């Protein structure tokens, strides 16, 4: 097992180097002089300009700059934000829990509804229920998040007034960030009101972000279940006199989950793309909004560092999904 992990990690290294190349050189192509941007409105004298050019190494060849960038990278130094002057890594770590919290809630929403929907559709194959579940799933799959989010706001915040419009928690509360996860922090702070507020702030963004994964999971679960329900071992399970629930929910589902888990894992990249839009719509202070704002502010170090960190996370999550696939599939786990 360990050897497998190391082998797969080894395969990631060239890709990761490629990612650093993209992050480094693409940001270098951004329009605008970084030093002038750094200096801001006040401008900068020619001497000071020269000094800054030397300090940041812009006078060296681009490859030397890339190497020193790689060197900094391995020491965990991703540079400082032009705007806040804070280290990019620490800003990232502060905002990251918000995105994780939102994504986890979204994926839970997607799995809790999408998985049973797919199973039911497969069991009721060809019936009205199957058609309506699958049509709904296709609508969800085609849903533009940047419209769906505002629509949810219009309905639940505007007409019904049930949920707040934006942010992570009501301004009434100040919660000391311990873990960075609002749900956990409010519980730690022992403030039930704050916890309820955090939950109500999470609902709409989670639905908005989770809808497309939900549709994908429902569709994939259905097709995986249909394939599995025709298998001989399902007939054996029925021949044992097991209940329909056990035949479908244990024997068939356990096998259908193998491809579905892969699909759920692959949604992480999709989720991140969606988080960019969802966080912008709901003013959710996470990585997605941070990246969009930084792109507009031309905050190069943040865009560069963020791009790299996000790509690294996507790669690691994909690796974990890959390993998980082996774990849920005995055929791979126990190959001698």
């Amino acid at each position, binding site marked *: 097992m360990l050897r497998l992990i190391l082998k797969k990690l080894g395969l990631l290294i060239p890709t990761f180097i490629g990612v650093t190349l993209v992050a480094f050189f693409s940001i270098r192509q951004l329009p605008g002089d970084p030093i002038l941007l750094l200096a801001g409105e006040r401008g900068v004298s020619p001497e000071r300009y020269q000094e800054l050019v030397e300090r940041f190494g812009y006078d060296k060849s681009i490859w030397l700059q890339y190497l020193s960038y790689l060197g900094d990278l391995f020491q965990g130094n991703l540079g400082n934000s032009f705007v806040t002057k804070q280290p990019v890594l620490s800003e990232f770590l502060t905002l990251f829990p918000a995105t994780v919290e939102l994504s986890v809630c979204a994926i839970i929403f997607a799995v809790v509804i999408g998985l049973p929907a797919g199973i039911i559709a497969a069991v009721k194959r060809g019936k009205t229920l199957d058609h309506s579940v699958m049509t709904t799933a296709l609508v969800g799959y085609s849903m533009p998040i940047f419209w769906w989010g505002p629509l949810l706001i219009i309905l639940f915040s*505007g007409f019904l007034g049930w949920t707040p419009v934006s942010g992570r928690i009501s301004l009434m509360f100040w919660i000391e960030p311990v873990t960075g996860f609002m749900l956990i922090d409010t519980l730690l702070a022992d403030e039930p009101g704050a916890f309820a507020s955090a939950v109500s702030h999470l609902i709409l963004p989670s639905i908005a972000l989770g809808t497309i994964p939900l549709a994908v999971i429902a569709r994939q679960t259905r097709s995986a279940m249909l394939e599995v329900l025709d298998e001989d071992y399902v007939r054996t399970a029925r021949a044992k006199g097991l209940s329909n629930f056990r035949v479908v929910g244990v024997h068939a589902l356990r096998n259908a989950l193998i491809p579905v888990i892969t699909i759920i894992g692959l949604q992480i*990249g999709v989720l991140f*793309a969606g988080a960019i839009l969802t966080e912008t719509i709901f003013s959710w202070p996470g990585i997605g909004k941070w990246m969009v704002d930084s792109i507009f502010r031309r905050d190069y170090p943040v865009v560069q560092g963020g791009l790299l960190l996000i790509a690294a996370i996507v790669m690691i999550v994909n690796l974990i999904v890959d390993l998980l696939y082996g774990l849920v599939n005995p055929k791979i786990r126990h190959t001698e």
Partner: protein
Amino acid sequence: MANVTQNSAPDTRFELIVNFWLHFRTNKGAVAALFFFLALVFIAVFAAFIAPHSPIEQYRDALLLPPAWTEGGNWSYVLGTDAVGRDILSRLIYGSQISLGIGVIVVSVALVVGVCLGLVAGTFRGWLETAIMRVMDIVLSFPSLLLALVLVAILGPSLLNAMIAIAIIQLPYYVRLTRASVISEMSREYVMAARVSGVGTVRLMFVTVLPNCMAPLIVQAALSFSTAILDAAALGFLGMGAQPPQPEWGTMLAEAREFILNAPWVMTFPGLAILTTVLAINLIGDGLRDALDPKLKRS
């Protein structure tokens, strides 16, 4: 109908198309979606004749007018007007040109470039293949929309650059798909036969092998057509795609965001336009997949 298995002699092209249509026709959703799509194409082509107003003219005396059938509506602006008094219906009609244009251009670029790279990777293998596939892996390690955003930021925000960026993020899917089917086709007898009879490599790639890899590519093209429209609208929504006053649907949504609670219709219709278009294309894509892929045919 059942005699079109993969190993039988290829039917004539006409038979193939008839066969395909017979399968496609059984999927009522896909057929309805096809008609919807054709209607949309018609609207896009004849936008100038259909639209009641200019998409960019601002009627200063009719700001934020609600749809005609609601109170305070005006039948000369059927779906109402936006914050600067432009007719929403006309903007939607002209917007269909942009969205369909995006789909066509992005898919053609990604398809042509992706298929060529995939053919090269699958035919020559070796270091060339490794290099191409590694680059595709790198593109895939970034969340698609994020990479598109950064690319557009580098190139400068405009519709054209948004299309380039989206074509780039879609490239890996075509390359992987083409490569995989080329590799599996290359080991088949008819390719061996062509090789033995001295067919040149380029001819082998494009004339012998490629037509037999088309089915999954066509399905992918349909699905990425809808993704392209969605992504371009998302970029427009974030201010990195089509620039105002272009009547692009995503850009219209971005402009409507401020009025989301007091003039919801400004936001409703462009979103509905995106949803129905994307849904129709996805339905067609599903129908294509069921009709083209013998393995997935419903029983």
